[in-house]
């Protein structure tokens, strides 16, 4: 892709995200969402491969529908209350339609069907953008409207997302689809707490972005699109296998690593709000995710393939490793001792 087009696309992504997260009026929020949708389509379809075009078409249809629904729900609220403020969405129909629209934007169950396929059809770095940057404006809108959302609907969608993300990730061999289902289950964790403590939603989102960026950039360096490629990627850059294992275990939420922090705080907050059964169910459902993270770590780092590969092993690859991998991996494994400071500032 030409540098000019890449510059315009990335600049438009930053612009759209900034417009939505700093908006007070529903029209500006919608504008930012539209700019984001339009800007990422060239990035998804840049290789003109049939799978990439298919992913771009599915992404476009879903996101355009969701944006139109956001605008429509704000219109219903404006008819009922006479104002367009994002934080004052008091009409119940508008709130339910907005929840459906944001679920479509984010990929929450039952509107998640597009997400694995779109991630599978896009290049690795664009898949990273789709999982992190493109989720930031809808999560911001969820944060801003959190006082008028319907807790039973959100809890049901969150538990279903955690369940589905875990179960459907079990049978996958393509790494981008596995990361898509991991994203869906993390979104479940983010959504379950949004009506009780929206700050924890944002904290979960930030930490999830760090950890998933570490994993995506790692897989991008070794070009490991499927499990079989991952198994032989230890020969390319051995240190990257270790960092991949640590980042995956952090995504799974294991205790000395950072990924434990959002899960711990969410379960604590849910228990304080007398929602112990929801906390128990979501904690048990994240065990399913733990299985496939452990399987990825096992195949990439802990075991070596028993026979030599069919093709020449690459001991030196030409592209240098992105320095961001080091930053993201250290952040995603070592932030847990800083949790009092994190709690004080969220």
């Amino acid at each position, binding site marked *: 892709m030409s540098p000019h087009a890449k510059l315009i696309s990335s600049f438009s992504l930053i612009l759209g995200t900034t417009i939505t997260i700093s908006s007070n009026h529903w029209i500006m929020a919608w504008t930012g969402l539209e700019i984001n949708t339009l800007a990422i389509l060239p990035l998804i379809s840049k290789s003109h491969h049939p799978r990439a075009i298919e992913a771009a078409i599915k992404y*476009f249809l879903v996101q355009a529908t969701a944006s139109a*629904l956001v605008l429509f729900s704000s219109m219903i609220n404006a008819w009922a209350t*006479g104002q367009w403020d994002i934080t004052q969405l008091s009409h119940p129909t508008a709130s339910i339609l907005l929840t459906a629209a944001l679920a479509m934007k984010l990929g929450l169950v039952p509107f998640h069907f597009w997400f694995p396929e779109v991630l599978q059809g896009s290049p690795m770095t664009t898949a990273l953008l789709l999982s992190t940057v493109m989720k930031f404006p809808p999560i911001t809108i969820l944060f801003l409207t959190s006082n008028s959302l319907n807790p039973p609907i959100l809890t049901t969608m969150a538990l279903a997302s955690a369940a589905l993300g875990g179960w459907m990730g079990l049978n996958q061999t393509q790494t981008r689809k596995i990361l898509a289902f991991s994203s869906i289950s993390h979104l479940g964790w983010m959504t379950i707490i949004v009506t009780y403590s929206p700050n924890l939603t944002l904290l979960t989102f930030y930490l999830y972005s760090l950890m998933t960026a570490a994993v995506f950039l790692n897989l991008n360096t070794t070009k490991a699109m499927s499990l079989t490629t991952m198994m032989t990627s230890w020969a390319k850059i051995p240190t990257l296998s270790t960092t991949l294992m640590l980042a995956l275990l952090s995504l799974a939420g294991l205790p000395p690593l950072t990924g434990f922090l959002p899960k711990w705080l969410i379960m604590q907050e849910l228990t304080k709000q007398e929602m112990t059964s929801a906390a128990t169910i979501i904690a048990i459902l994240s065990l399913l995710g733990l299985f496939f993270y452990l399987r990825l770590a096992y195949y990439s780092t802990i075991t070596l393939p028993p026979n030599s590969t069919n093709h020449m092993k690459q001991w030196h690859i030409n592209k240098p490793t992105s320095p961001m991998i080091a930053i993201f991996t250290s952040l995603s494994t070592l932030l847990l001792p800083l949790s009092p400071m994190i709690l004080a500032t969220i």
Partner: protein
Amino acid sequence: MSILHLSFYATFALSGLGLAFHRTHLISALLCLESMMLSMYVALSAWPTENHTATFTLAPILMLAFSACEAATGLAMLVASSRTHGSDHLHNLNLLQC
């Protein structure tokens, strides 16, 4: 709800259902998307009229600009699908199944 608001509501809901239940062609889904945007445009245009707020007249124009961009992008996707999949049939978009 006044009859005007009800008509906007019904137009949006019907085109939304048309988008959700699309059957064969991608272009019918794009048409329903355009129809949703059209109903939003007329609804936003009616707002400054019924509330006598002249400053809100920008909103339907802004919305129309973005929905035109979206329509153009949708048509570009249609052409791209014709080049890669041979047609705009939606049941051909099955390369990425789980």
